[in-house]
């Protein structure tokens, strides 16, 4: 187990280093520098600015400084708004994005597990077909397609929920549902097939044979065993919710990290794009590690080894 964790951590650090280096190389490959602009500054000013940001040093020196800064979580400054650092943006935006993402993942997990279980228990009957239809919609309708329709009908036509914005609890419902739907479908599908697998196992028959009431068999034995594979797709699910939130935050005007990210893409604010990418990448890589470790912890039957099992 320790060997496995060690291996995974080394792999994670390597991934982080690759993305940091890739980012640095890409940043340096853009022609010009942050101070090439329409406004003509005197050469002395530009030299001073470059010195201030360390751009007068050689590329290897800059690379070392850059890595040092990353290790100390200093992600640089925004070009468009020099008074703000990327860290400022992260501390403003990330809690909001994390809240939205957290609700979405939670919603996806609860709804997915519930629907998948119900479909499996009523296999071939109405709940099963209803779930299949939802799963079909979930895999085929991207969140940025679903969101405007939710806005139009639930927000504008029937006035059930606020159209956009952030701050009130009811404003979370629409964006979180739009983000969660695709994941609900995936989790429900996986949960359904996993449940169907588990109900044929001997220990379920044993549990029934010793006279446990049906709901207890389901809650204590079936779901608890069937939920294990669901854990494996939590990593990709978190990644999907996170990337989905870029556009969802834009559509619902939520002042989260995604909004800054999309704005920085539109304005070609390179340091912000790079800093945010590194932050997101580290976050996702860390989440994947946690999910992997949890998998080994939840299911003791699985011998966690560094090698690919399949």
């Amino acid at each position, binding site marked *: 187990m320790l060997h496995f964790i060690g291996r995974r951590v080394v*792999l994670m650090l390597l991934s982080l280093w*690759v*993305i940091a280096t890739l*980012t640095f190389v*890409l940043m340096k490959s853009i022609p010009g520098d942050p101070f090439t602009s329409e406004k003509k500054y005197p050469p002395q000013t530009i030299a001073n600015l470059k010195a201030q940001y360390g751009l007068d040093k050689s590329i290897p020196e800059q690379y070392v400084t850059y890595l040092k800064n990353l290790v100390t979580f200093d992600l640089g400054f925004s070009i468009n708004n020099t008074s703000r650092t990327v860290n400022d943006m992260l501390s403003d935006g990330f809690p909001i994005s994390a809240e939205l993402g957290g609700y979405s993942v939670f919603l996806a997990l609860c709804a997915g597990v519930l629907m998948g279980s119900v479909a499996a228990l009523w296999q071939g009957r109405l709940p099963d077909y209803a779930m299949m239809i939802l799963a079909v919609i979930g895999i085929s*309708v991207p969140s940025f397609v679903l969101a405007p329709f939710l806005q139009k009908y639930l927000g504008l036509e029937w006035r059930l929920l606020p159209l956009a914005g952030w701050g009130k609890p009811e404003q979370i419902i629409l964006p979180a549902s739009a983000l969660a739907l695709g994941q609900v479908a995936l989790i429900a599908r996986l949960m359904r097939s996993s449940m169907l697998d588990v109900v044929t196992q001997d220990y379920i028959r044993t549990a029934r044979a010793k006279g446990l009431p049906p709901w207890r068999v389901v809650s204590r034995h079936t779901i608890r065993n069937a939920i294990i594979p669901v854990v494996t797709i939590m990593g990709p699910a978190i990644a999907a919710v*996170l990337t989905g939130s870029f556009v969802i935050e834009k559509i619902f005007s939520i002042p989260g990290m995604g909004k800054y990210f*999309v704005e920085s893409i539109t304005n070609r604010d390179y340091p912000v794009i790079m800093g945010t990418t590194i932050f997101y*990448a580290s976050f996702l890589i860390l989440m994947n590690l946690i999910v992997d470790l949890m998998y080994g912890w939840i299911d003791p039957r699985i011998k966690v080894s560094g090698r690919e099992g399949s």
Partner: protein
Amino acid sequence: MGIPAQRFEPSPKRQAAMEVLSRPSVTYWQDVWRRLRKNRLAIVGLIGVALLILMAIIGPYLQDYSYYEQNLATGKNLPPSGEHLFGTDDLGRDVFVRVWYGARISLIVGFSAALIDLVIGVLWGGFAGFKGGRIDEFMMRIVDVLWGLPYLLIVILILVVMNDPGLIPILIALTITGWLNMARLVRGQILQLKEQEFVLAAQTLGASTRRLMFKHLIPNVMGPIIVMITFTVPTAIFAEAFLSFLGLGIQAPFASWGTMISDSLIVILMDDWWRLFFPAFFLSMTLLVFNFLGDGLRDALDPKMRK
């Protein structure tokens, strides 16, 4: 007692009759097709994909407008009618033509990305799996490290730096990390296959590495590879739409479903529903039919997997 002795006579061996095949022999692919045909959803997927390809080819010619032709004077935001089947947009461009033009872009991106992934993935994974040992270890470590990187973020980063939105940058960005899945799949399969007797037999008969690879190993992995391709196509189509939606993909005047959806977001709050509905509908349908086909193919190509 009751059984007469002649009942115990051995029945004559009819050598000729034993050699006759009672049924025509069925090849693996015929068998796959037979299984696929029985799967209703897979057939829906197959027909859907075929229709989509057909409409992407002929659709833009069915109406007398081009995808970039504007009509600012009289043709802005017209609802669907006989003249404009899917209406027009805020610049007076015909939405019907633009939707099918967008289908072209989506399909080109989907199929090209799948093809590039296929070539790189099969070569990389096949080589690693076949060689084994140190080389395999090293090559797959590279895959593992790249695997840890978030796909869409890398794609966004590369597109931002290339700073030249269009088809080719999107394809480069999508395939830079896209081949990893394929490499892992092929390598795993080759590792298993190369220990089997038919490979040993071929080696004993003096087959070259190349022949072994392309005549014996790869054809045996074709099933899973095809399934993987069928799922790569919708993934790439989704990614293109997502990137175009963010403004990193196909730019006006070219039509992409992602751009069209993004352009009509404000409009949904008014009543010009057709500008959002048609690209959104066909994007969803495309993802749907490819997923149906992929599920069906997976069941048909690998009956062991079926529940």
